[in-house]
C-alpha cells in the first residue's frame, strides 16, 4: 500500500511577513480588532 510519506513534506516560509510567528501575531491582533469592532457596533446600536 502506498504510504503518505512517499515524498518528503516541505515546510516553507509564509508568503508575507517572513516568519510564521509574525503571521500568528497578526491574526491574533486582527481577532482583537474584530472583537473591538463588534463591541463598538453593539454599543452603537444598543437599545
Amino acid at each position, binding site marked *: *500500500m*502506498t*504510504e*503518505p*510519506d*512517499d*515524498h518528503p*513534506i*516541505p*515546510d*516553507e*516560509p*509564509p*508568503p508575507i511577513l517572513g516568519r*510564521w*510567528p509574525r*503571521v*500568528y501575531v497578526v*491574526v*491574533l491582533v*486582527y*481577532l482583537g480588532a*474584530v*472583537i473591538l469592532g*463588534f*463591541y463598538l*457596533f*453593539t454599543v*452603537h*446600536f*444598543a*437599545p
Partner: protein
Amino acid sequence: MTTLDWVVLFLWLALLVGYGLWRGRGSGTVNQFLLAGKSMPWYVMGLSIMATQASAITFISTTAQGFTDGMRFVQFYFGLPIAMVLLAATAVPIFHRAKVYTAYEYLEKRFDPKTRGLVTAIFLLSRAAQSGVALAAPAIVLAVVLGWPFKVTALAMGGLVMIYTATGGIKSVQWADVQQMVVIMGSLVVALVIAVSLLPKDVSFLDAMRIAGAAGRLNAVDTHFNWNDRYNIWTGVIASTFLFLAYFGTDQSQVQRYLTGKSIGQSRLSLLFNAVAKVPVQFFILFIGAMVFVFFLFVQPPLVFHPGELKKVQQSAEYRSLEAREKTVFEQREIAARHIKDARDASSRSAAIAEFRTAQNNFENVHQAALRLTSEKDTNYIFLTFVTNYLPRGLVGLIVGVIFTAAMSAISGEINSLATVSVIDVYRRHFKPEASDHHYLKASRWATVLWGSYAVVVASFAAQRTNALIETVNQVGSLFYGSMLGVFVIAFFLKRVSGTAAFLGTLAGQAAIFGFAIFSNVAYLWLTPIGCVAVIAVAVAISYGTERQSTETGRVVGS
C-alpha cells in the same frame, strides 16, 4: 417553487456532482483517495474546511438565530482564530511529519495500540451517531419546503454524496466544497441585498440597522460573565477555543482536510484563512437573520413559518381568530418600528423603544399561541419562508439548491472521515495489515458506500422521532471532544506521560464530562475544557505516581 426554480435546482445538483467527479479523477491509489496525494493548495483546503463545518442546518438555523435572538451567537466563533493559530503552530507540522493518514495513527506512534483504539472508538461512536442526524435535520426541512417525501430527500442527498465521494475520494469532496462555498456566499449576499431592497421606500439601510439594534438584534458582544450562559465573550474566547482546538485538531473530518496539503505551509495557510474569514462570515449570516427580522416588521409574516404545520392548522377556528389578532398587533409593531426610525432625540427614542417592546411582546404572544396549535417549532423555516416567498424566480431554486448541497458537503465530510478511520485504524490495523494498495482502495470505496447507506438509514429512523432527539444527538456529539483534545495535548507536549497513563486519563476525562453534563447546569461549551483538563490531570498524576514507584523500586533493588 416555479419551473425555473426546479430547473436551476437540478442543474445546480448535476453541476456539483459532475464537477466533483471531474476533479476527483485519477484517485487510483489510497494516498490519492484519502489524502489527494498531498497535492492541495491552501485555498481549496481552507474553503473545504469552512464548507464541512457549515452544514445546511447552520445556514437555516443561524439566520433564524439572528432573527429570534440577535447576533450574540457570533461570540461562539471568537475562539476559532485562536485555535487555528495554535493548531497551525503545533498540530499541522506534527501530523505532517508523522506521515499518517489519520490523527489516531499518530497516537499509536506516540503511545500504544490501546490508546489509539480507544480514541478511534470514541471518534467512530460519536461521528456515527451524528452522521445520520446531519442528514436527517436538513432533509426534514427541505422535504417540507420541496414537498417531497422525507425518504426521497434523504436518499437523494445521501445517494448524490456517495456517488462523488466513493468515486473521487477526498479530492472530489474538497473541490465540490469549494464550488459550494463560492455559490453559498454569493447567494447569501444577494439574499441580504434583496431583503434590504424590499424594505419600504422610506426605510433606509441605516434605519433598518437602527430598528434591528433597538429590537436587540445587533447584540454581537456581551461582556457579562455567566457559567450557564452559552454565548458571551468569555465562553467565546475561552471555552470555544477548547472546542475548536478539539474539532480542528482531533476530529478526522477536519484533520484529513489539512493533511491533503502539498506542504506544511499550505496546510497552515488553510487554517489561517479560516481564522481570518470565519468570524466575519458568521457575523454576516447572523446579520441577514436580523435584516429578515426587520423585513418582517413591515411585511406581515405568516403566523406559523412551518408550511406543513401551517396547512394543518390554518382552517381551524382558533387559528383564524389568532390571525385576526395578528393583523392588529403586527400593525402596532410596525408603527412602533417607524417611531424608532423617526426618533430624533434620546427621550423620544427611549419612548419609541418601550412602545416597540410592548408591541413585540404582544406579537410574540400571538405567535406562541399559534405555535401551541402545532406540533413542531418553526424557527428552521424562517429563512426559507423568506427565500421561497420573496426572492426572484430562479434564485429561489439556487438558494434551496445550495442549502441542499451544504447538507451534502457536511455529510460527505462525515462519511469520508468515517470511511478513512474504519479502513486505516480498524481494518488495516486489526484485520488485514499487509494487503495491496488496490485492496485498501477498494475497501475505502466500499466503506464510503457503507457509511453513506448507514447515514441514510439512521436519518430515516431519526426523522420518525422528534426534533428533540436530533438536538440531543447533536449535543451528545460534543461530549467527546474534551477527552480527545486532552489525549492529543498530552501526546504533543507532555513527552514523559506513558500510553497507559494517557489511556486511563482519557477514560477519567470522559467520566468527568458525563458527570458534569448530567449533574450540573454548566453550559455545554465548558464541558470540552473540563474534560481536557481532567484527562491531563489524571494522566500526569498516574505518570508521576508510576515514575515515583519505579524510582523507589529501583532504590530498593539498588540498595
